[in-house]
């Protein structure tokens, strides 16, 4: 089975760093953004941004699959 490319894995790691490992940095109430406490705002923003990251990963993998088909 084809392994994912390093670029794809790196891109997929971004949401993990943002939403999970960096929690001590953003788990606070101030500054409140759009009426939301900062931690809640941060997570909601990253739900959307993660989807964006995965879209890039998808494009990347598609392009790679197409390139492999052209040059077997």
């Amino acid at each position, binding site marked *: *089975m084809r392994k994912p490319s390093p670029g794809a894995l790196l891109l997929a790691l971004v*949401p993990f760093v943002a939403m*999970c*490992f960096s929690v001590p940095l953003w*788990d606070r109430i101030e500054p*409140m953004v759009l009426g939301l406490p900062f931690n809640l705002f941060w997570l909601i923003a990253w*739900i959307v941004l993660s*989807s964006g990251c*995965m879209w890039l990963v*998808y494009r990347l993998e598609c392009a790679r699959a197409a390139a492999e088909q052209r040059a077997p």
Partner: protein
Amino acid sequence: MSPAAVCLATIFAIVAVGTIVGFLAGVRRRMDLEQWTVGGRGFGVALVFLLMAGEVYTTFAFLGASGWAYSRGGPTLYVLAYLTLAYVVSFFILPQIWEAGRRHGMQTQSDFFLARYGNPWLAGCVCIVGIVCFVPYLQLQITGVGLIVSIASYDGIAPGPAMAVAVALLVAFVCVNGVRAVAWVSIVKDVLMVLAALAIGIGVPLIHFGGIGPMFRALVHAHPTHLTMPGATRNLGHAWFISTVLLTSLGFYMWPHSFAASFTARSADTLRRNAVVMPLYTLTLAFIFFAGFAAVLVVPGLPNGDLALLTVVRQSFPPWFLGVVGGAGALTAMVPASIFILTAATLFAKNLYRPLFAPAMSDAQVGRLARVTVVVLGLISLCLALFSSPTLVSLLLTGYAGVTQFFPGVVLGLYWPRVSARGVFAGLLAGVGGAVFLMTTHRDPLFGLSAGFLALCLNFLIVVIVTLVTPAVSRERSQRPGTVAWAADA
């Protein structure tokens, strides 16, 4: 009509519409075992999305997440992180699982372990652990229905009889229709759930505080520490957050039903696209959190946090609206519950009973046995729901500590050709054993880390060590006789 009558009539109408949609979806299709369990492997992006969303957004999301927002505060935010990250993980494993499933004609998670490792004992063990982990998850859904009906009847109907009716309905529904019905009922359920979540999440803060911003200001003023970790708890801090998010996001697709849902897809690409779109669905949950946090100030002092969402809705909206929310909530419990029962019954009949006791059974007989199992499982979970009552979130996390132990076997099985059946088996036993030990001796969390996560680390370590010390077997010999070459070699 009394408020209770209006409310219950609305709930009943919604459940009835949902059920009829389900029955219609199953009509005029020949129901062989494959059609019943994996929908003939013909679902496109939209249906797979609905089926998976149908499993994900359960009573847990509806009542449990808002319940924890109410009673625990900050730590609940783990839900937003883990669901999003679970889809990120899914991009890298589900297409591969689908590919293997198509080559080997897999219908269950246990089939996967059998084809990859060729060890029937390992496959049987996976099957048993999977079924056992379903029990708390099923109990969660049925308890949810009981709470909904009891609150919607303005405390006129006890939760017990409500649960019994719900179980009877869903057993009938699953026996007749299988997985396709479930995907279609999900449509009704999802539309209602999204609308209800938006209305509640915006409406409740607006009615009581004049908006979401003022609501959070008031909450921060009244309870300055509620919104950050560890919130209203003593030991659920940042280490707990990280370990729990990792445990649950890696374990998300290890639930036997989510794993098997990937087999319903038409192509691997369907699953990749799904991984891109699914995170956005998590946004709905944010609105449910708003309502849970608002409830802290509006209806303080509830004995059970899981009642928070519905109680605050009852205080803020007319009875018919409580009926709509209750109906959405009831479907939200019944759709996943039917998926769990369906998966567990198939696992039991196909992967446990047939190989061990009746190897000569035909697919049609397995299908019949699975339907009988559906009835039995429905009754078992009803009994449990009637006689015990932990919070919804703790039921869910208990299940996760178990199912995530499949993760090393699946991921290493896909990407590490050398990994041995013996290693995976040892790791699985150590992981499940470790999780059970820590949880039953009340050592969860241990050193601030979630017990299931610690067990998962132990599991990984043992798989790698045992695999490295056992001599590498040649690929031909490690294959079960009669199976096609394993997809990972291609």
